[in-house]
């Protein structure tokens, strides 16, 4: 499960994540409608680690049967995935920014497999990615293929019953080739989840469902790389969940843990302010 053609150091991956966030903000400042910027920013490091380090995929051969499959179960982070994929060479970033959300564009609020064949599935309604991933993992097992099926869910999304139905199925069918990353940003759209909906004890829940549980800081690129490198072999018998502790709005101080920035748009002034905040955050972290 490695980007072997073009391996990156952790520092290079951190730079790519910064570039991804900058491009996200730029799109958010260009597009007039709302973008799910909060959950994009919390997923940015995970998606960078996956598309630039973890996933064995080839942008020039999107139907190769041996590729790892990646499903964005939290489909509202589509922009973050489109840009991460563009940086890996799947799409052109300009194509995304220039057409996003417009009539007949392939790039919209939630990914559509029909309009954008480079993505693995049409998602958007929450709680759908994990069952789809279970089907793809079963298919790989049935054909004796050794690729992995990887999905990224939001933690709020795991309130959906279908997630736990699929979690049970993955355990019953011993799908060690299935990996779920969870963006544990602890926010729903309208509340902080431990205030209204108690997900804790969260990692225990997954362990009780028979999953191999890894718990990391989802903004620590070194930890993400390590978690990916340490994944059990795809022919092992337990699915793995990587619970990534994250911050919604990560990298832009006025958006961080701020319910107002679940989704939003940036005017020109806001864009400058957000870019400055992103730069400041980077300098602070590199000290």
């Amino acid at each position, binding site marked *: 499960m490695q980007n072997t053609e073009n391996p990156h150091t952790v520092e290079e991956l951190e730079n790519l994540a910064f570039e991804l966030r900058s491009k996200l903000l730029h799109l958010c400042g260009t597009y007039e409608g709302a973008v799910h910027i909060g959950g994009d920013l919390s997923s940015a490091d995970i998606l960078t680690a996956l598309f630039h380090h973890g996933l064995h995929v080839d942008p020039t051969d999107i139907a190769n049967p041996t590729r790892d499959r990646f499903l964005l179960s939290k489909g509202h982070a589509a922009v973050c995935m489109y840009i991460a994929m563009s940086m890996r060479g799947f799409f052109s970033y300009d194509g995304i920014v220039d057409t996003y959300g417009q009539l007949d564009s392939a790039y919209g609020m939630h990914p559509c497999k029909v309009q954008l064949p480079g993505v693995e599935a049409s998602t958007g309604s929450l709680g759908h990615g994990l069952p789809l991933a279970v089907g793809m993992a079963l298919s790989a097992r049935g054909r004796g293929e050794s690729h992995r099926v990887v999905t990224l869910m939001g933690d709020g999304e795991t309130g959906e019953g279908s997630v736990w139905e*699929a979690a049970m199925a993955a355990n019953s069918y011993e799908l060690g080739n299935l990996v779920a990353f969870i963006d544990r940003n602890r926010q729903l759209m309208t509340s902080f989840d431990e205030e209204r909906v108690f997900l804790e004890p969260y990692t225990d829940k997954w362990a009780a469902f028979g999953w191999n549980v890894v718990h990391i800081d989802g903004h620590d690129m070194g930890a993400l790389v390590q978690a990916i490198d340490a994944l059990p072999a795809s022919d092992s018998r337990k699915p793995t969940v990587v619970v990534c502790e994250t911050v919604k709005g990560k990298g832009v101080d006025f958006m961080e843990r701020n319910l107002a920035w679940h989704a939003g748009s940036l005017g020109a002034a806001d864009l400058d302010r957000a870019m400055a905040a992103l730069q400041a955050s980077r300098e602070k972290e590199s000290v």
Partner: protein
Amino acid sequence: MLSARSVIGTTLAELGEDYDNLWVLTPDIGATLVEFRDKYPERFVDVGLAEQACVGVAAGLAYDGNIPVVSGMLPFLSMRALEQVRSDVCYPNLPVKIIGTHGGLVGNGGSTHYAVEDLALMCALTNMTVTSIGDPLMVGEVIRQSMTMQGPIYIRLAVGKKDKVLYEPGEHEIRIGKGIIARQGTDATIFTHGTVVAQALDAAAELAKDGHSVRVVDMFTLKPIDEELIAQCAAETGGRFVIVEDHLAYGGLASRVADVVADRGIHLTAFERLGIPQVYAGFGEDEELRDKHGYGLAATIAATQRVIAAA
């Protein structure tokens, strides 16, 4: 006894040989699937009581080039998993087949266990082909034909206890999207589907004793509907239509036919629809419930007499 339900299992077990990418999935409803399960355990998936995951897993398999068949009880597949059917299967137009029982007021399970809105729901879904079948031999044929279809299909059965073989093999051409003229006639047409076809044929035979020539159309494909046949029946049976179905009277076949009549400007002399009214139907045997809710044999005969008498 040959039942539609038993044919599912034998047909799938047969097709499993020709199609090594055929998978069968079920949410804990599997008695009829044992033949497939025993022959191809590695392509049989029982997720337990989890209809949403079951349909989602099927879609995941289909994304990867497989042909998944989901078999279970339709009230749950069509409603509890409706969003998965719509967004995971129909939206990307995947070749998932949903085959199940308990279509209509059958099985005496009470209203939680009757699928009576399912055809309305399924017909509303873009890309979905919708069928309802009463003849066990037809079930096998439709499943076989569906194997080469690109998109999804919904195959509705009753429960199998009272299934009748209606047609001799080769008697009619069975083709998805084409209605079957189960009985010729010129005074009126009864359109129906599923196990109610047998009842409509009984009604036509009864009416023949009074000299009435009543056509019976088995409109086993509700979507896409056979528009040409509807136009042809209007022209050949005096524009006199009765629609009888084991489904809500509004939203099922009657509504499909009415849409065609309105859209094409077909002139009718009389139109009656018999089906389940907007009530939760309660317990009882199939025929008792049909009689109670106004779409049994006697009601069908009476409605047909009325449309024949209409000026």
